[in-house]
């Protein structure tokens, strides 16, 4: 098991009522190993009640990165929502607390 924070960087932001989370792995080796584990459905279940809609994953092998779109995750868009993290700024830190089943 590896902590994602030991093998990757992450940043998140809002797109309407949705959040995107980018995960950049520290090496191609970890990117290749993680790609079969860090699936859309795994990420969807990890975020639990934080994500009401679907999760779609995009691959950026040139950056050893994955981009996740988390639909319906802000209880309304930027200015309508009442939640404190209205722009999904903290989702990147949340994904880094994940543990994934990969070895060196």
């Amino acid at each position, binding site marked *: 098991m590896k902590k994602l*924070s030991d093998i990757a960087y*992450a940043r998140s932001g809002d797109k309407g009522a949705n959040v995107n989370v*980018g995960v950049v792995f520290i090496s191609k080796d970890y990117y290749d190993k993680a790609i079969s584990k860090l699936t859309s459905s795994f990420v969807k279940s990890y975020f639990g009640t934080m994500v009401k809609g679907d999760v779609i994953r995009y691959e950026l*092998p040139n950056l050893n*990165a994955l*981009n996740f779109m988390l639909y319906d995750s802000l209880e309304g868009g930027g*200015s309508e929502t*009442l939640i404190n993290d209205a722009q999904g700024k903290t989702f990147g830190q949340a994904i880094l607390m994940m543990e994934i089943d990969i070895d060196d």
Partner: protein
Amino acid sequence: MKNIRVANGQGFWGDCIEAPAKLIKYGKIDYLTLDYLAEVTMSIMQRQKKKDPENGGYATDFVALVDSNINEIINNNIKIIANAGGVNPYACKRELMKISKKHNIDLKIAIVEGDDIYNDLHNLIKDNHKFKNIDTNENISSILNKIYSANVYIDSFSVAKALSLGADIVLCGRISDPGLVVAPCIYEFGWEKDNFNMLASATVAGHIIECGAQCTGGNFTKWKDLKDMDNIGYPIAQIREDGTFDITKPENTGGLVNKFTVSEQILYELGDPKKYISPDVCVDFTSFNLEETSKDVVTVTGVKGDMPTDTYKVSISYFDGFKSSGQLTISGPDALLKAKKSAEIIWKKLENIGLVFDKTSTEFLGLSSCHKSIAKTPNIINEVVLRIGVKSQNKNIVERFTKELAPLITAGPPGITGFAGGRPKVKEVVAYWPALIDKKVIQTKVIL
């Protein structure tokens, strides 16, 4: 090979006010770009303009910036491209001309107009332009009588034209954020509309630097590795005629530029990486390579682009009711229990007088409010902030809500504080409606 240095000194209205001045003085830059507009900013400006049609509706910070740095801007031969014009670039220009006169310096200020379609919107709708919400597919008729602003994200060639006419400062309204960087490349390198790879490359450069310090160590996962965050360097893109570019920052500044600070920002607010659509080009974000070529220098090569779409994106904002959020700090033994009890009391009291809201929220800041079940629950919660909010189309009941927080200090559980700021404010909710419009009906114009 010919190259230009383009900096970004403002990622949003409210960003560090010293950053543009430092870039002007120490950045050795050719162009300074400043991004003042978020989606909601346009609606605020449109309302300022309604109150004061002569003088309201642009980014006033920009005028102060030019006033304090005008000599260095001229001496260092720096051109400025800013979307500071908002919905009233004429008023912004007028103020800048006063400053130009005061300092006895001849500033050429161009306005790029054509983005603001607020006054034409009803005619466009009559002419069968649909303005369907591209996120929800809803029909515009549902918001028609409550629209605050409507602006088209115009292309970068219009801005390049202003530079070719000799402008020192180009004032835009709504232009795509990366377009602030694409425009000087088009002008300097003579790129044509079908130089898709080059336009795409400059668009990536613009995307990387458009949020200021977010590519130079700001909001960075490995923040503990950074030095001198109090003097963080704002970004510079050194772009070559062939489209390849370096991302860097001024010497003797804090922060960091490496593959990861840049990659994090490339992914920021990104959707499908193969279909990044700008008004100028469609960019493939999976096409290019990053390389650390020197200390605090990342070189980007191989960006691929393709033909743009035949529509512009339109950003429409509209009135969507009222909201208010307030908070109380709850301390001491059983802090969380007391906070939960306090929330229960407030909601019960509002229910007792028959108030029903469209939306409510109850959060306990300090305890998993951001990360829910992902965060580990601490053994001892010694204090917590109760944050509570409502939204309604009815302003009166939102106002009534704001009066229910303070009484908890004397009439609720013990150890509650943090109400020095008075009752929470009632805010208008300005919602955002993204749509598309046929490029053929939008005419941009440069006024010098």
